[in-house]
């Protein structure tokens, strides 16, 4: 399941981010939340955007959807090519016809992204009314069908209920129903299970994987949970301080992480069963704290926390280089 290797950057990816920069202009200064980010997503592929708070993974997603709040945010430069069309160049009207229909997004907290004063069925029907010009009755029927598809019991009854009447897991299912209503080509899922209990999380991930098979949707999964990433995605993009620091097929990145940050991230989590087998080993710490975007260190932004840092790391920022084994890494010390 999931981990078949696809060749990244095939000739015409479904989505290609080219040197995207999204900055926030505030009284405290300019925060370069997304700073020169490039990656692509192929048709039907699932990739994972990994990183800690403030690394820019959510702002990257919002940039793709063109939902960055302006002001204070602004997509400063770069291109986001969707089937060859630059989403940053088209009119907001045209973007509206893509957003939700061809590129859909689900969020961490389903309660705040559902409208509390409309029934769940109404909100899903609206997708069909808006994007497919269907009549009210047909839209409603299709909405109930979607609710059934996301395995909510008693779909007819649930469609007539309001978001607060549903449990957290069911609300996230309703969000998925809405997102997939128009069979989008891309689904962006921003920490879709972080607010859920672990047994509910397992069900939601399972549902997303089933629907991926059925609809052939490409998925960008944003998560800080390396377990979920390992279980679901084919390729990983690791972000740190607004930049992509490593990218590669899931297996390769887990087997041989190349960036010191990725290495540290993998080793800082305990592994179940290891303690019973070998006794408790001290966890590897990444020193210091996640940097403040307003006061980024010069050179490589990771250098103050990096165990391998040398002189050049303090002086100049490394470029993202491709390695011989199909990975990409942004580190002065990495071998091509």
């Amino acid at each position, binding site marked *: 399941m999931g981990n078949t290797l696809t060749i990244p950057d095939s000739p015409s990816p479904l989505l290609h981010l080219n040197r995207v920069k999204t900055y926030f202009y505030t009284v405290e200064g300019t925060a370069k939340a997304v700073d020169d980010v490039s990656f692509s997503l192929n048709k039907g592929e699932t990739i994972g955007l990994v990183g800690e708070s403030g690394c820019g993974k959510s702002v990257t997603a919002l940039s793709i959807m063109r939902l960055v709040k302006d002001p204070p945010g602004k997509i400063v430069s770069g291109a986001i090519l969707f089937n060859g069309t630059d989403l940053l160049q088209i009119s907001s009207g045209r973007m509206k016809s893509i957003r939700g229909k061809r590129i859909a997004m689900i969020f961490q907290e389903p309660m705040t992204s559902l409208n509390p004063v409309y029934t769940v069925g109404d909100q899903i029907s609206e997708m069909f009314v808006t994007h497919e010009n269907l009549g009210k009755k047909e839209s409603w029927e299709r909405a109930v069908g979607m609710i059934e598809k996301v395995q909510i019991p008693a779909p007819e009854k649930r469609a007539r209920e309001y978001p607060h009447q549903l449990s957290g897991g069911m609300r996230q299912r309703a969000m998925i129903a809405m997102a997939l209503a128009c069979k989008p080509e891309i689904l962006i899922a921003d920490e879709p299970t972080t607010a859920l209990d672990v047994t509910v999380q397992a069900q939601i991930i399972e549902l997303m994987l089933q629907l991926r098979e059925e609809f052939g949707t490409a998925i960008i999964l944003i998560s800080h949970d390396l377990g979920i990433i390992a279980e679901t995605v084919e390729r990983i993009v690791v972000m740190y301080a607004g930049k992509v620091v490593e990218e590669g097929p899931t297996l390769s990145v887990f087997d041989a992480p190349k960036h010191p940050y990725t290495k540290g991230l*993998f080793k800082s989590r305990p592994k179940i069963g290891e303690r019973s087998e070998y006794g408790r080993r001290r966890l590897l710490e990444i020193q210091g704290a996640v940097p403040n975007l307003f006061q980024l260190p010069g050179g490589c932004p990771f250098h103050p926390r990096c165990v391998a840092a040398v002189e050049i790391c303090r002086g100049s920022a490394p470029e993202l280089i491709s390695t011989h084994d199909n990975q990409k890494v942004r580190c002065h010390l990495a071998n091509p």
Partner: protein
Amino acid sequence: MKDEKEKSLLKQPLVEVQDLKVHFPIRKGILSRSGGMVFAVDGVSFTLNEGETLGIVGESGCGKTTTALAVLDLIRPTAGKVFFEESDMARMSPSELRKLRREMQLIFQDPYSSLNPTMTLNQILNEPMRIHRVYPRNERAGRIAYLLEKVGLTPEQGRRFPHELSGGQRQRVGIARALALNPKLIIGDEPVSALDVSIQAQIINLLIELQQEFRLSYLIISHDLTVVEYICDRIAVMYLGRMVEMAPYGDLYRDPKHPYSEALISAIPVADPRLKRKTPMLRGDVPSPIRPPAGCHFHPRCPKRISGCDVHSPQLKDIGGGHWVACHLV
């Protein structure tokens, strides 16, 4: 392995909880008519030994936090008893309880909302000593500097305010504050859940070092089963107000006996892409503790239920090796 054996030989109970029940009435309308009860904790018993770490895990609404608050006497139990060093907390006078509070301290999930934003770190760490009138006034500054260093901060940082610190540093302050009165027991309610992965390791390592140095007992409340396995000696699994299983950490993960523990453990995503994803064992959400199902609370979701599970509540049984299970099938 050896130190664990020694530990078990020196077992000295610090906290003993017997058949603890905490029920909250639901009030409806202006006349406060009772609209039923929330059975937050419904008959929980356990012992925490000196120097030991006990973890309580479970999903939202299982009663793990309420159990911890009852141990701290921050919530009065509806029924049942809590003993601290063999004295019944319900029979203590207010002044005895006040003294006892020095011995038990709490670390919160969100280090930001649990630190007073208008106080410097020095003031925050001075508060517990001032309130409990311990350590002479002229020694307190020295003790604050010592505490800051113990948690990996510098005495110079004592003049800072919480907003000037990172999340991990704030959690260090929360830990220093918990240590200020030299307690025997520290209760951590999701102590690392709000932190970034790279910071979690720092705090987990710190908690383990401090435990060894000060011979602390920990009660760790968490939904993160991976972290709990690493920190805790024994782990209790709760479901809808009841304890369904309690076992040494290794046994619980290797050989969970209760179907709920089994489902919970199999649902943990494993950071190894070579392992095949497991099909979820449970369907549906955790039911509400307002009207918990009859019999075994878990029976409506249990893949292994038999007739009778919906009528009789299973008792927690000792199956040997410190492993306790509440299931009719065991």
